């Protein structure tokens, strides 16, 4: 497995898009931090951008990469290698380069300007989101044979997770504003890793007071050790579940 990972990582690192992504994150974080005189404010600004950019790049880059590696995968499948090994190596290679890019691009500025619990939480969430969306991209890519369809599906998934889901939440909140649905909202937020990440970071920033009663309920749940570990568990499930499904699909796929 190590050998295949090596070739995948070499191939990705040779890709200029990865370098561009790292530089982009770095310049973005540096400029946001130097624009704001208060580092906490800068972190908040960075959070909003990162929650949009990281899933988008992870998802689109990984999907396109899998389609472009079709020849490579075909070559490997005819060799004495387990299909699971090939797929997991692809995942590991993509995930580790995405994590590396995020760490170098956004992690270093955050560590320079805000080296506290909030900053670490931000880096951790960014890393987790990178991996989650690589896993989701692999699932989208293995499910559809057609490249255009697969990339379209990836873009739609991103739209869903970063825009449509929030719209759906707002709709729920307004429709059921007469009912006590705050506790249900905690459950619903688990359905979207981006929202979950946002909540976890916002609560660390201690600005939950601005979110009103819902914020209090969230603080009550996510602020505790159990709530925190449960949310991280859910984030891990968001990695494992799509990955397991994609491995199962890849094992049966005709090449």
């Amino acid at each position, binding site marked *: 497995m190590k050998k295949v990972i090596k070739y995948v990582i070499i191939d990705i690192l040779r890709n200029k898009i990865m370098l561009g992504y790292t530089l982009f994150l770095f310049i973005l974080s540096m400029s946001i931090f130097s624009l704001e005189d208060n580092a906490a404010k800068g972190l908040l600004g960075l959070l909003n951008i990162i929650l949009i950019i990281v899933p988008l790049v992870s998802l689109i880059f990984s999907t396109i990469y899998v389609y472009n590696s*079709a*020849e490579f995968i075909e070559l*490997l*499948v*005819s060799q*004495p*290698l387990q*299909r699971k090994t090939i797929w997991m190596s692809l995942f590991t290679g993509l995930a580790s380069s995405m994590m590396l890019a995020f760490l170098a691009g956004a992690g270093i500025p955050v560590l320079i300007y805000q080296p506290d619990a909030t900053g670490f939480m931000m880096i951790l969430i960014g890393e987790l989101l990178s991996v989650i969306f690589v896993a989701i991209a692999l699932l989208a890519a293995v499910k559809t044979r057609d490249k255009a369809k697969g990339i379209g599906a990836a873009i739609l998934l991103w739209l869903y997770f970063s825009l449509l889901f929030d719209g759906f939440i707002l709709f729920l909140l307004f429709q059921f504003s007469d009912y006590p649905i705050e506790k249900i909202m905690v459950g619903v937020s688990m359905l979207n890793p981006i929202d979950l990440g946002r909540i976890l970071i916002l609560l660390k920033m201690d600005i939950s007071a601005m979110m009103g009663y819902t914020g209090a309920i969230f603080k009550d749940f996510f602020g505790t050790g159990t709530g925190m570990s449960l949310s991280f568990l859910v984030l891990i499930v968001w990695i494992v579940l799509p990955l397991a499904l994609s491995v199962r699909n890849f094992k049966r796929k*005709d090449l």
Partner: protein
Amino acid sequence: MIIATNVSKKFGSLQALNNLSVTCNKGECIALIGPNGSGKTTFIKTILGMVVCDSGFITFNGNNINNNWQYRSGIGYMPQIGRYPENMTIGQVFDMMKDIRKASVVLPYDEDLIRNFNLNNLLNKRMRTLSGGTKQKVSAALAFMFNPDVLILDEPTAGLDPVSSEILKEKILLEKSKGKLILISSHILSELDDLVTQVIYMQDGALCFHKTIEQLQADTGENKLAKAIAQVMQQ
């Protein structure tokens, strides 16, 4: 060595393989013949596990190939259209394959074809810049490199110039004399005459017949494989 039992495969509504049962033994050199779309490549890909069959099973040396992958270290495969990572050079592809297969290979590497095809001068060329024929040469070199017991060649000479095609034929004859199982699918029947010992004829995914070449000659009264097959097809 390779035994396929009632193998069926459907691609959508197309029946690519229809209840195919074939036995291939060590030392045989088998020609896989049939019209376009008769399922030759699909059959080859099912042996390699690249296509998963819907029903039936294939055994390699007595082991079911389903969920098994080690058996592929005994197979050298030359695809019909070799597709390689475009950014890699020929040398890198060779090194990568050696790296992946070195655990199970009988050293030294068989680099006859690399020498005879003069691929040594092209090692720094990127795969995307190669012509179809050169890619075929790379595929052939890779198939023979690891001294496999079984060679599966899907249209090996398509796209090769006459000289290279002769070099490849010589190499196949050499490996045949070592008692390996060789499966060749081809449309150029005249080339198979002095190579093959058996013929598998497929049509619409089903096996029409599996005969030794002598038997085929006796049944049709023709000496040349091309004429014998032509006579069979006309019936």
